[in-house]
């Protein structure tokens, strides 16, 4: 029963993809209610099935046999065999909830959004369902190969959706950039997979977990494996140095940014680390590296986010920054905290993205914050929801972001290998986060500068006969998901009430300790126990106080500068102080990559074309070919085209065999 249901849940999105894909082939203007019905069914059905399973099964106490089941034998080559099957446990059901739940909300939102966009509807929903299909396989597969299948599948869906607006070069380029950056990570991930197979002899999760519960593997080896696997996560989850694709990916439609590039796909790296927790927990050096890379990413992208003027770019860098938080948590062994932040981030970042999408739609596809301002009176509900999201992300007590971020900061502080440094970076990031998110809000909704009037003026100039003046109304099916997400952003944090309040292990931490337990009684918390100091209660109070303080400080700075000071960001070409210029130009990382990687690559390519290929390889091949031609000419003399000659050869061969026969007899 469960197996059938799960299989159904896994493949229904594909059915939606196929149906909508066929519809999009037939006509670009397919019946919208039909298309959206199919699309929503493709995600709602799995959601309902997972909800049913959650409430009808005792997920935490499934036996190992019940957790995994095999659909069919996928490939079978000698000793290496891969089954196609799924795994149902606390981690996968958690991810499935997020994927299908947020996916469902965003599907609903997309109906209104894409209706306003007037793009081809069915293709969009087909791609979304394809994404859900791939993401579910990434999450639910019972072995690393299926995870990799889903990993590549979401990459494909991401590529297709980033370049959804096929007429825009920038969108297509962004899609390619995302694809290529992901390929680099995938290469590392594959190597990690191979090494892991060498060590454990299996790629099935149950086998891996069992292996690690029985054997202990040298930390050196695990460090190498963990690093390679983490390279994959770096690519997919946009960490330094491969984060550059994610901001560009904002070229895609806003629901895509919310679903793929904020809530689900980019967290695949985090999920993968949690999934393979024994590997990473056995590799302390690699974990430390992960923590530092996460912290650096968080700080670095927060710095960039400070000066961005595109509303979606700010949120994109914010996403990179928050992902850095998650990796920092994973690196210090706080798996529960990382997954907790994954969940809350999914809520509030989806909320922020979708709200910004509503703003963009309302302003006729205007994304530049310099053209906004004073929108509060036009978009009251959206503004309120945006405020909720901003408070949640900045870590103001009471909302979800506060709990998860505080947990991560506390865990980072206790880390033995430079915990205070990590904490400091995290704290600084929290300050910056608070600043840029409120900067965003003030610039968009509250300054005296009237964005709407500006826009109308702008429109009168360029589109004299545009009928849509003023702010466009935001339809209910865009608003409803926003409300739900806002409620989740407010309440979602309460599954992880801190130790300080309850004097118990936070619920979500104990949940993941139970879920990720890979050998009898060895949970991530216990495994990483020796990595950590143990703070006193007063220390915890101080830490929490500090983090609240920085959130408030960030808010105040933003308020003073942008609301009271009424500052506006400069136009693109204007002169900036060097610190602003660096941030605004993203620390010139793209240019650095161009200089460091692309130029040498081009030179190398030129060298290998002009010297290696033309001179060496071609000449060698010509020589070989000439030799072959000579040999062939010799043998061609036998091939006269005359059948009697061929018959003669047959006869000679037969005679030869006869001679052998006679030799045998005599």
């Amino acid at each position, binding site marked *: 029963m469960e197996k059938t249901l799960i299989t159904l849940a896994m493949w229904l999105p594909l059915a939606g993809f196929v149906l909508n894909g066929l519809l999009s082939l037939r006509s670009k203007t397919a019946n919208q209610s039909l298309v959206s019905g199919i699309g929503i069914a493709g995600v709602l059905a799995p959601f309902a099935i997972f909800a049913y399973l959650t409430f009808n099964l005792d997920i935490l106490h499934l036996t190992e046999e019940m957790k995994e089941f095999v659909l069919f034998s996928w490939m079978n080559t000698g000793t290496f065999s891969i089954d196609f099957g799924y795994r149902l446990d606390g981690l996968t059901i958690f991810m499935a909830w997020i994927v299908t739940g947020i996916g469902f909300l965003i599907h609903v939102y997309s109906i209104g959004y894409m209706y306003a966009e007037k793009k081809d509807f069915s293709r969009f929903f087909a791609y979304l369902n394809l994404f859900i299909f791939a993401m579910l396989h990434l999450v639910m597969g019972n072995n690393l190969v299926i995870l990799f299948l889903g990993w590549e599948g979401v990459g494909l869906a991401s590529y297709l959706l980033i370049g959804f607006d096929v007429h825009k070069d920038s969108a297509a380029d962004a899609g390619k950039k995302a694809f290529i950056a992901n390929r680099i990570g995938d290469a590392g991930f594959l190597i990690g997979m191979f090494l892991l197979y060498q060590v454990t002899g299996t790629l099935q999760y149950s086998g891996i977990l069992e292996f690690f519960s029985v054997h202990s593997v040298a930390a050196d080896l695990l460090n190498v494996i963990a690093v390679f696997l983490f390279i994959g996560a770096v690519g997919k989850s946009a960490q330094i140095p491969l984060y550059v694709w994610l901001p560009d990916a904002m070229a895609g439609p806003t629901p895509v940014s919310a679903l793929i590039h904020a809530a689900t796909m980019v967290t695949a790296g985090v999920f993968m680390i949690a999934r393979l927790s024994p590997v990473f927990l056995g590799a302390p050096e690699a974990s430390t590296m992960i923590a530092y890379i996460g912290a650096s990413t968080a700080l670095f992208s927060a710095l960039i986010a400070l000066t961005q003027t595109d509303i979606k770019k700010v949120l994109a860098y914010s996403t990179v920054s928050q992902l850095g938080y998650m990796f920092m948590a994973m690196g210090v062994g706080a798996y529960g905290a990382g997954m907790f932040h994954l969940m809350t981030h999914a809520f509030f970042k989806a909320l922020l993205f979708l709200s910004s999408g509503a703003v963009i739609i309302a302003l006729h596809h205007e994304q530049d914050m310099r053209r906004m301002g004073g929108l509060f009176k036009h978009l009251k509900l959206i503004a309120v929801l945006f405020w909720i999201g901003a408070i949640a992300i900045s870590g103001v007590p009471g909302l979800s972001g506060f709990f998860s971020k505080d947990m991560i900061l506390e865990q980072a502080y206790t880390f033995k290998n430079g915990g205070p440094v990590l904490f400091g970076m995290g704290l600084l990031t929290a300050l910056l986060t608070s600043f840029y998110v409120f900067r965003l809000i003030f610039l968009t909704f509250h300054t005296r500068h009237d964005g709407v009037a500006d826009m109308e003026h702008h429109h009168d100039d360029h589109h004299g006969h545009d009928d849509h003046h003023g702010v466009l109304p935001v339809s209910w099916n865009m608003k409803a998901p926003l409300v739900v997400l806002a409620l989740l952003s407010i309440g979602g944090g309460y599954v992880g009430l801190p130790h300080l309040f309850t004097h118990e292990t936070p619920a979500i931490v104990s949940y993941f300790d139970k879920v990720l337990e890979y050998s009898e009684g060895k949970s991530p918390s216990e495994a990483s126990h020796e990595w950590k100091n143990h703070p006193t209660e007063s220390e915890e109070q101080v830490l929490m106080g500090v983090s609240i303080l920085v959130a408030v400080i960030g808010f105040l700075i933003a308020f003073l500068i942008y609301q009271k000071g009424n500052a506006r960001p400069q136009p693109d070409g204007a002169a900036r102080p060097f610190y602003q210029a660096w941030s605004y130009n993203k620390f010139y990382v793209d240019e650095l990559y161009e200089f460091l990687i692309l130029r040498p690559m081009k030179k190398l390519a030129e060298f290998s074309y002009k010297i290696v290929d033309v001179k060496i390889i071609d000449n060698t091949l010509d020589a070989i070919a000439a030799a072959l031609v000579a040999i062939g000419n010799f043998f061609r003399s036998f*091939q*006269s*085209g*005359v*059948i*009697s000659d*061929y*018959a*003669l050869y047959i*006869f000679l061969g037969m005679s030869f065999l006869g001679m052998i026969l006679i030799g045998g007899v005599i």
Partner: protein
Amino acid sequence: MEIEIIRIIFLTVVLFSIGILGVLTRRNIIVMIMSVEIMLNSVNLLFIAFSRYFQDLNGEVMVLFVMAIAAAEAAVGLAIVIALHRNYHSIDIMDIKALKE
């Protein structure tokens, strides 16, 4: 009515060799096919001889099959010869060298 089987074997060897000689030396496709028939029939003779020698009729049945196949072969082979003649206006094996290309 008794004949030593070794003589028949030698006879079939001679006939078979003559057939080979025809296939290898003649340039007329039809004569080549006829030489192939000689080869087939020399083997048939051997079949019959051994079939009689062992008092086992499987050999004769085999000859029956060989005959049927030979009939089919002749029909198709001659049809090919006609098609060749139509396209090359020759049935000289030296003129038909499409295999070389």
